């Protein structure tokens, strides 16, 4: 680890004449659409190469690409965070890794690889979670780029950066560039915390995850997926008790596959395969090098334009669909006034007088624009229901059965929190 953190000192200041011939063409001259504030020449180069500090979150499919693009573009002080280790299924796209690297931390291997290939760039890796770091840590960067596959992590960093904004201190506003891919599709966006639409504002644009009703799984399976869900959701805990299922353990997947296949035979359902079993229980999303390259390049291009002002940056959403020709759509996603992270207004929710607290929680979990797992609820005067600690959970549990109208008056507010998210949501309750 120490070796990886050390800079490749010998190579520092290794700029050779002509190294930036290509990039300097756009840094020495403005274009027709360049903002007049652009400081062409030495000033912008010095900022980019000597002063700008950038954070990359994720060293996977997008992260590997992002690190290489930033290094070649002239960013020299790059930090990278990733909590994962390298798996063989990463090698079809995560081009900084080789077979011999399987099992090693992605952040460390990626940093090492870039520093070997691009002299003079310093990459500081951190093998761990973004939640390990505090605001002081994030405050040191000029820009943050995310290449993540997790909605939860994105919501966390988005909320953290929005919370960090201090109107008195312009330096506290850290542009966030976020990329994501799925098969031949992807998107890149620029978020100026508190100023433009944030990640939370667009939560309802996410595809709804396929969820199979438990009664279908238990009683009327029709698809191979229903049999696989039965094996993992119902049979695994029944047979293995408290033993935790590890979807990376081939023996566990093998057991699920066998169990699902037997159920499928019983019901004359075709199509249960090992690959499908893995896909369903691990929620595998197809991923290829080319889409990652496009989206990562788009993110880095925006970072480069923001850092140098050499051209206007994206306002604020680029969406790509590559299945039928090349289709892309660039648009401005609007801020949501009732966004719990950057909006400040309460969400109005109209429910029936009889709706129980339990049912309200279920509604919050399911709503596309809220998507809050295990929410805790309170009103300004009382605790309605708390998921933790256990004593508080036990004390508030009887409220689950009560109608909300017994606890909150018409027009009253409920504050919703969850441990996984660094923000709270305000609901204003109305009754039909």
């Amino acid at each position, binding site marked *: 680890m120490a070796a990886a953190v050390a800079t490749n000192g010998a190579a520092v200041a290794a700029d050779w004449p002509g190294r930036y011939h290509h990039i300097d063409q756009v840094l020495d001259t403005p274009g027709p659409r360049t903002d007049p504030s652009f400081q062409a020449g030495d000033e912008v180069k010095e900022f980019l190469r000597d002063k700008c500090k950038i954070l990359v979150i994720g060293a996977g499919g997008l992260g590997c690409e992002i690190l290489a693009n930033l290094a070649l573009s002239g960013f020299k002080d790059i930090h990278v965070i990733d909590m994962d280790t390298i798996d063989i299924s990463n090698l079809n796209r995560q081009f900084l890794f080789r077979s011999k690297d399987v099992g090693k931390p992605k952040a460390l291997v990626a940093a090492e690889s870039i520093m070997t290939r691009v002299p003079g760039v310093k990459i500081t890796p951190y093998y761990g979670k973004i939640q390990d770091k505090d605001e002081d840590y994030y405050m040191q960067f000029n820009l943050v780029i995310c290449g993540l596959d997790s909605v939860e992590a994105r919501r966390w960093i988005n909320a953290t950066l929005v919370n960090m904004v201090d109107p008195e201190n312009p330096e506290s506003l850290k542009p966030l560039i976020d990329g994501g891919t799925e098969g031949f599709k992807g998107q890149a966006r620029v978020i100026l915390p508190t100023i433009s639409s944030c990640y939370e504002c667009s939560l309802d644009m996410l595809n709804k995850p396929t969820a199979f009703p438990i009664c279908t799984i238990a009683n009327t399976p029709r698809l191979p997926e229903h049999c696989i869900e039965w094996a993992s959701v119902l049979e695994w805990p029944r047979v293995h008790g408290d033993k935790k299922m590890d979807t990376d353990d081939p023996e566990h997947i093998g057991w699920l596959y066998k169990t699902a296949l037997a159920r499928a035979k019983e019901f004359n359902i075709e199509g249960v395969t090992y690959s499908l079993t893995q896909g369903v229980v691990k929620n*595998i999303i197809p991923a290829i090098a080319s889409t990652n390259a496009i989206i990562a*390049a788009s993110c880095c291009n925006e970072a480069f334009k923001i850092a140098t002002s050499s051209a206007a940056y994206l306002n604020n959403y680029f969406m790509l669909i590559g299945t039928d020709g090349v289709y892309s759509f660039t648009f401005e996603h609007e801020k949501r006034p009732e966004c719990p992270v950057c909006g400040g207004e309460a969400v109005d929710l109209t429910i029936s007088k009889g709706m129980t607290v339990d049912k309200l929680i279920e509604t919050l979990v399911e709503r596309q624009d809220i998507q809050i797992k295990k929410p805790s609820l309170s009103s300004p005067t009382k605790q309605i229901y708390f998921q933790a600690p256990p004593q508080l959970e036990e004390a508030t549990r009887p409220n689950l059965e009560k109608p909300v109208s017994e606890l909150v008056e018409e027009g009253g507010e409920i504050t919703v929190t969850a441990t996984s998210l660094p923000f709270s949501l305000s609901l204003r309750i109305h009754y039909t």
Partner: protein
Amino acid sequence: MLQNESQTLDEATMSIQPDSKTRRYDRQLRLWAASGQAALESSRILVTAGSATSTSVLKNLVLPGIGHFTILDAAPTTPADAGNNFFLNANASIGKPRAEEAVPLLRELNESVDGVADTRDLEALLQTDEGRKYVTSFTLVIAHNLPAKTLEQLSTLLWQDPTYPPLMVVRSAGFLADFYIQFHEHCIIESHSETAPSLRLTKPFPALQAWADSTDYDKLDPTEHAHIPFALILIKEADKWRAEHGGALPKAYAEQKAFKADVRARQRKLDEENFEEAEAQAVRMWTEKAVSSDIQALLDAPPVDPRSSPNAAFHALLQTLRAFVHDPAGPGCLPLTATLPDMKTDTESYVRLQRMYKEQARVENARFKELLKEKFPDLPIEEAVVDAFVKNSHHIKLLRGRPFGAFDRDAEALASALQIFPKETATHLAFTALSALLARGTEVTAEALTAGVQDLVGPDVELPDELDAAVGELARAPTADLPNTAAFLGGMVAQEAIKLLTKQYVPVNGYCVVDLVDSWTGTVGAPQ
């Protein structure tokens, strides 16, 4: 029987652990399957330069596992190359042949890919028979920022014979780029269209109709009633509607609304999800056609003689499809696809319905094969290809291309494109003007580029304001291969190459234009 079944299960689990190749490629096999992977692995790709854009494209082709690549590049590595290309050993590569420096660094991305550096000169190769034979021996040729004259020679050569490889022409400068795929014809069986194939609910096959007829709502208990598959509900409702409306199905919006209301009125209890589903799926009753307009256009086009086409199998299958649709003994529409969507029903009904569809699809597949044999008795086509064609006959695609540059010589098409897609067309034309200026060795200025574009479109055509943005950017950075633009193109060009090679999904037809100042892409100049 039980014993047998458990044996099969054990056997199945013996070999379930996928091999390391399947594990490595798992995330892409979910997109193009083993057939697409095999096509990639048998491909041989020629790239005519070792520029940053070229190695970015190659990276995204080596990773998923093409068979072979050759970098044809006579140039030594310059200090500028060493600064913008990840697949060189930085300043240690300066002065050494670019191709030879890049190939080992690309090969280490994937041990199963073969790669070769060729330091001969492309222009010289194009002058000899042997050289031309070599260039045409690849599966695909990719050319980035080739000088205008060499590009002209290369594209002309590759257009000469439809069996020669397609050519991808990539041009970039600074934040802008465009690329074009030159091919005569591209046939796609697996387009992976997301529109659902017909369930033939407006024209049920006999077994399906019989089941619908024998379903009597009044004789079903509440559980059965709540589990009638939506397909049956819609067939029954359509029969009733036809009887009351002179044999016609709902057409006008009011009729469609009334039909949906009728479906919903059959619901006995509010929680009968199958009727809700039927209402939501009712749209099938007025949108489904025997043959979609896209496929109809293919069937109506003048037939191509398979014996004289490099895509013999596809054309034979297409003509058989036409015969199938017109076959008096057939269903009068495209062959049935056996894949059913999920429906709110019980296991038994669903499996029964699935078997019905499968059986009917099997019968129609067999009839299709008979027709194929009658029409093309001597043409060998793999059975798997026929099966894939029949299964995907709702989504087959046939793209017809034009030679590179034909659009730029088509004054009428240019004038119209400038009206409809001003920024895309202007950017594309600015690139054509740029390569002409670079070929002449004239200084690249916005004025010179604008004059070049005016020459291309003719003096009477008014140039759009959008042209200023394009020529200004090109004049700013006429030879800049920016790392981010290179990486962006590397992804796009590789993606299109993969679609070409696997013959899956639909490649772009026309000039794909990229503007990374305003972050947009667009396509112009598609053949009509």
